[in-house]
């Protein structure tokens, strides 16, 4: 048999039909659904008299525009249009008999945190969702990617997607990470090296010692931002850490089925002589704590650097950098560590898990946020929130002057009331720094939870290593 990559193996195990031109029907094991990109898909099913083919493989949770303040179970405490979308998801989940975690359920949270937490996401699966950060689930050795609403409808109706295979790209992070460097710094640094279109047309497999050393949560952070590098999906070969994480989760297999699953999962790795269409290697020790300075996730530099001059770029990026620097209210040559911030946001599907909160709390313990600064922590799920309260992390955040919120996507995309005002500058642990992403005119600097915590204390972008 010819050698295969991990992606090849999962792909081959899910082709339900292949046409002569290579167009495939790829079978989907898990379909995650949220309130913003699904109403039109369910409406389409109703209009055509179609039904959900596999409701028990379909999991829905409202996350994008739910408020993160108390009392949100009452629709009166939501804006009218948000309440309509959440009510539509309630109804669609009930009418079509799909698994559902309503706002009132402690297991509610960001769809990409709930899926792994509940054991819906398992190695070797195909996982899709009408959300580009579905890439997160690749951390389990699952083929996971975002789809549009027409495709959501297609998966609901047929449990398949019409796909052509992507190319294989290997991103190897060798050696060890230095203190203060996290999974977020890895994933941002990779995007900095490849650009936001560097992964277009590829599925990226992340590998190497620094990736193997990461926890499952760190691996989720890395894969989460594969989409920011343009890739269809990011994936990491499952290992003992993966199996340990999955074991005992509510929807993970049990008993003999667990053993059978494990036997297959252990075959899920890229053969040593597999062919790659593109290979990138980065030394773990060369990665520093980074922040973004511009309005594209590729605008990333070590915290010790300066805002670059637009002329230092090539082609269309010269104009884009000029526009970014103006939008961000910065000056070329300005030290990144001199940039003062107004707000800190800790949360999102990138960095809203318990380890992220632990890392931020470790920096904040016994300290206060800078006076006048707005700071909030939005746990990724109700269960993450409960655990953080049990571990005393919530109290550390509250004592430091942070708002302690309920779970949701929140200020990552600002569809709920958590938004930046024009010109407001935010240190954020989320994944996109696009113009207006966190609110019209808002200015976003992406970074790790540790770095965001450090920025909260000093009121400016800060090298967390100085606080360790």
């Amino acid at each position, binding site marked *: 048999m010819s050698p295969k990559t991990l992606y090849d193996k999962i792909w081959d195990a899910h082709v*339900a039909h292949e046409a002569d*031109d290579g167009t495939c029907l790829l079978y989907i094991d898990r379909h995650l659904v949220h309130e913003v990109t699904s109403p039109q898909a369910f409406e389409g099913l109703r209009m055509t008299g179609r039904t959900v083919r596999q409701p028990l493989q379909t999991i829905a949770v409202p996350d994008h525009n739910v408020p993160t303040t108390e009392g949100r179970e009452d629709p009166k405490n939501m804006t009218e249009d948000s309440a309509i979308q959440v009510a539509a998801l309630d109804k669609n989940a009930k009418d079509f008999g799909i698994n559902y975690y309503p706002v009132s359920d402690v297991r509610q949270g960001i769809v990409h945190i709930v899926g792994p937490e509940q054991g819906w996401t398992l190695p070797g699966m195909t996982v899709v969702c009408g959300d580009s950060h579905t890439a997160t689930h690749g951390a389990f050795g699952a083929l996971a990617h975002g*789809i*549009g*609403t027409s495709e959501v409808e297609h998966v609901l109706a047929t449990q398949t997607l019409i796909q052509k295979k992507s190319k294989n790209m290997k991103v190897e992070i060798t050696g060890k990470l230095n203190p203060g460097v996290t999974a977020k710094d890895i994933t941002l640094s990779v995007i900095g090296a490849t650009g936001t279109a560097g992964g*277009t047309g590829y599925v990226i497999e992340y590998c190497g010692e620094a990736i193997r050393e990461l926890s499952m949560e760190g691996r989720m952070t890395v894969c989460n931002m594969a989409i920011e590098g343009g890739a269809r999906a990011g994936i990491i070969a499952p290992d003992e850490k993966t199996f340990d994480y999955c074991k005992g989760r509510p929807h993970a297999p049990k008993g003999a089925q667990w053993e*059978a699953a494990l036997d297959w999962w252990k075959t899920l790795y890229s053969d040593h002589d597999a062919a790659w269409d593109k290979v990138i290697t980065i030394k773990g020790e060369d990665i520093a704590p980074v922040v973004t300075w511009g309005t*594209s996730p590729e605008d990333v530099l070590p915290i010790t650097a300066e805002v670059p001059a637009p002329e230092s770029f090539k082609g*269309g990026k010269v104009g884009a950098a000029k526009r970014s620097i103006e939008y961000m209210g910065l000056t070329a040559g300005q030290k990144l560590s001199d940039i003062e911030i107004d707000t800190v946001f800790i949360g999102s599907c990138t960095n809203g898990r318990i380890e992220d909160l632990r890392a931020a709390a470790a920096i904040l313990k016994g300290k206060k946020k800078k006076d006048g600064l707005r700071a909030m922590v939005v746990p990724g799920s109700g269960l993450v929130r409960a655990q953080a309260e049990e571990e005393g992390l919530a109290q550390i955040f509250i004592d430091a002057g942070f708002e302690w919120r309920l779970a949701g996507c929140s200020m990552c995309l600002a569809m709920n009331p958590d938004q930046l005002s024009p010109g407001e500058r935010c240190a954020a642990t989320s994944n996109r720094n696009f*113009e207006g992403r966190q609110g019209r005119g808002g200015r976003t600097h992406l970074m790790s939870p540790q770095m965001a915590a450090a920025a909260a204390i000093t009121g400016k972008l800060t090298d967390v290593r100085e606080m360790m």
Partner: protein
Amino acid sequence: MDKFDKLSGIAAPMPLVNIDTDMIIPKQFLKTIKRSGLGVNLFDEMRYDDNGEEIPDFVLNKPQYRDAQILVAGENFGCGSSREHAPWAIKDFGIRCVIAPSFADIFYSNCFKNGILPIHLPQEQVDILMKDAEKGANARLEVDLDAQTVSTSDGEVFNFEVDSFKKHCLMNGLDDIALTLEKAASIDTFESKASQARPWV
């Protein structure tokens, strides 16, 4: 789905790289449960000021481009969020074709589901089309999907690549789901085999 065959139209130039789907349709307009009516908010934050007034400099506010049916843009068009509201807004505005050196994967796929033709061409050719588009309403680009060509107002012709299956669906306005349901027997067979091999799924 609307068919796409030939298009002769005004092309609006947007010489900006990495135009993301947050720019194309900001999040506050994603709260709809419909597909229609988003055209007025296409590029909302670039197109209107804080008071909701049109920004005259923005390309689609200029008289000569208000009826544009084609957009010419920089590389990595449509990056970011998977929101299909982006192609819905583009289509609702009246644009049926986007030309750029490269597109983000999900956006590219979403276009075909909505009767929009995304065309990727080498940067040098996009540069020529951008210059042509800058001439305004007198310069109409011609797009022929069957022949896979784009022609400038000066008669220069560029060939483009498109996946044969996607082309077939777009030219005939085919519904993907109906096509897939014709292969339901293959899905049944796959499911019955998979339930043996991977019963935990």
